């Protein structure tokens, strides 16, 4: 059987997760990951990496649940193993608080995270502007550590990595039989998807090692996420804004909002990165046949995870793997001999 050459484009959390899934499950494939930017310069590196989710409008809830659960189980296994620190994955407990009681009191992932419950009145006393809250334990996956760890795993499974900006699917069609597109924001130009738009996020990384709990305002705008070496404090959600420079107004606003939630942050030291979430109504996880240089080339898409890349990376990668399998089955017999 002839080796099937697979190209995975994109080296963020979705790209590497997808590449690992394919390389580990399909020995008949030789997988090459190509990307312009690698960790620590990907969007994933800016992300706090908290495993949480909001509902995507166009995907059946069952499918989103499955994505979330696959990702959670995968990361939980790592968190509980001796590999946790070298993979950058940890268990984290904390709360999500709301100024008004939300319509959806039990999100779809409430039985997938651990120990989900409503906060007690005594616990809410710390947050005088908030009326309702949920406490639970979830996972945090720090991509600056996780991506290099995934890369090791990918290479161990026979994968190859190439640093290269891919400007069109065309340029890959000669050397690859299946293309997997995990280019996040890049899909806007690479495959002409104008549903993809940047959602700007500015955060602080602060030194506050006494903080052990995450705090997230249910509006998604203010959050404090303690990590291994720093605490991510944020944020902003500016749709269509592609500025990668720091905005002083945003800095001021973030610090003000988060210090209200956690007064001890006044004593913490600061660093400030910015990232552009690959916004889309819902992630695009599907396959299509694209005519490239006279051939019908199977392309599997896995992009558009907005601010939920880490949470859905593994689950969508598993789906993408399933789609690659389908591509293999559907390929003309001659190519597989």
């Amino acid at each position, binding site marked *: 059987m002839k080796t099937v050459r697979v190209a995975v484009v994109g080296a963020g959390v979705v790209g590497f997760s997808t590449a690992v899934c394919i390389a580990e499950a399909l020995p008949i494939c030789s997988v090459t990951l190509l990307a312009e930017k690698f960790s620590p310069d990907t969007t994933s590196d800016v992300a706090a990496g908290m495993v949480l989710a909001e509902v995507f409008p166009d995907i059946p809830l069952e499918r989103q649940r499955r994505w979330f659960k696959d990702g959670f189980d995968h990361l939980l296994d790592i968190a509980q193993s001796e590999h946790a*620190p070298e993979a950058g994955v*940890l268990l984290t407990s904390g709360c999500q608080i709301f100024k008004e009681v939300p319509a959806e009191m039990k999100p779809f992932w409430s039985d997938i995270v*651990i*120990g989900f419950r409503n906060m*007690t009145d005594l616990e809410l006393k710390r947050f005088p502007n908030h009326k309702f809250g949920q406490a639970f*334990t979830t996972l945090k996956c720090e991509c600056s550590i996780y991506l290099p760890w995934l890369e090791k795993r990918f290479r161990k499974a026979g994968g190859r990595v190439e640093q290269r900006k891919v400007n069109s699917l065309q340029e890959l069609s000669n050397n690859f039989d299946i293309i997997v597109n995990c280019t996040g924001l890049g899909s806007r130009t690479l495959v002409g998807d104008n549903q993809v738009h940047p959602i700007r996020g500015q955060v602080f990384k602060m030194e506050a090692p006494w903080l*052990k*709990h995450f705090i997230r305002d249910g509006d998604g705008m203010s959050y404090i996420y303690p990590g291994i070496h720093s605490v991510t404090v944020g944020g902003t959600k500016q749709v269509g804004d592609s500025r990668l420079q720091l905005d002083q107004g945003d800095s001021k606003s973030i610090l003000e909002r988060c210090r209200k939630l956690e007064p*001890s942050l*006044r004593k913490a030291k600061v660093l400030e990165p910015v990232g552009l979430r690959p916004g889309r109504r819902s992630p695009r996880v599907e396959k299509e046949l694209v005519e490239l240089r006279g051939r019908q080339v199977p392309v599997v898409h896995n992009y558009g995870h907005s601010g939920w890349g880490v949470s859905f990376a593994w689950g969508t990668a598993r789906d993408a793997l399933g789609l690659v399998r389908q591509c293999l089955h559907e390929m003309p017999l001659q190519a597989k001999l």
Partner: protein
Amino acid sequence: MRVAVIGAGVIGLSTAQSIYEQYHSTVSPLTIEVYADQFTPLTTSDGAAGFWQPYLYDKGNVQETKWNKETFDYLLSQLSSPESVKMGIFLQSGYNLCNEHAPEPSFKDTVLGFRQLTERELQMFPGYIHGWFNTALMVEGKSYLPWLMDWLQKRGVKFYHRKIESFKEVAETGADVIINCTGMRSGALQPDPDLKPGRGQIVKVDAPWLKHWIITHDFTAGTYNSPYIIPGSRLVTVGGVFQLGNWSEQNNSTDHKKIWENACQLEPSLKHARIVEDWSGLRPSRSKVRLERETIKSAAGPIEVIHNYGHGGFGLTIHRGCAEEAARLFGQIVEQKGKGPKARL
């Protein structure tokens, strides 16, 4: 009034603080002096992990349960103060794990969000069949004690680096009241067969990915004689042993091995943690805390002593409640000596 506090661990310093807070405006002059042969960072309080949690059951010592709760509530109220980081106070959640079914602990209504562990959580800890999750407080001695000393020094409290050999010696300096907060070494000032060392040894490691404390309970082995992992603000404290009657403050390699192996089984990610140091300390264990007045007869006249020692492995947990009670006892002495506010009319 002249008050002499013997001992500069968390008990001595917090008692001095409570006495100052409650009486400095009504008793004038109020001179407070602290005598100790060890100061932070060399006290027993400094070595402790700094985790607020009483023993699971108070065995009827309802006073102690009350003092524990007062301490928790006090520390909780200090959380929002701008001093909280300097004081070494912060919240942390975690797991209490039991190898058999056990009744709920005495502190279940004091801590935040107390609940039973879910099935999935128990699956995370093979070998344990039952347990609880809650949010508790940390109060790290290495920060809290310097903060207390600073607080006291700013208010005129004087410190003397001296080993006290007898109550008489302190009485001779002119002290009206002696507060005995000498912890493990109280027996040297006044024999107490009920006070015994509960030797503990810990390993401090660098493992900043750990954000929860994990305390296991083995009812046959006894309190603190089973693994615990308590992340602090900088390092993680791994224990535990509780060796009643063992006076050795030397680190023991057999204990180290046992502690480390058990902890790695409980938390596999520790395998890659950098070990920073070992430490051994003696918990001043007693059947119950000795917090009471005693008038000691001496050739020079009666000596008023308030004993505040024997806090076992829960000194940080109970300190504030005991300090306030000791201050109350001090108030009784003030009344008796006619040195209260009425006396100044």
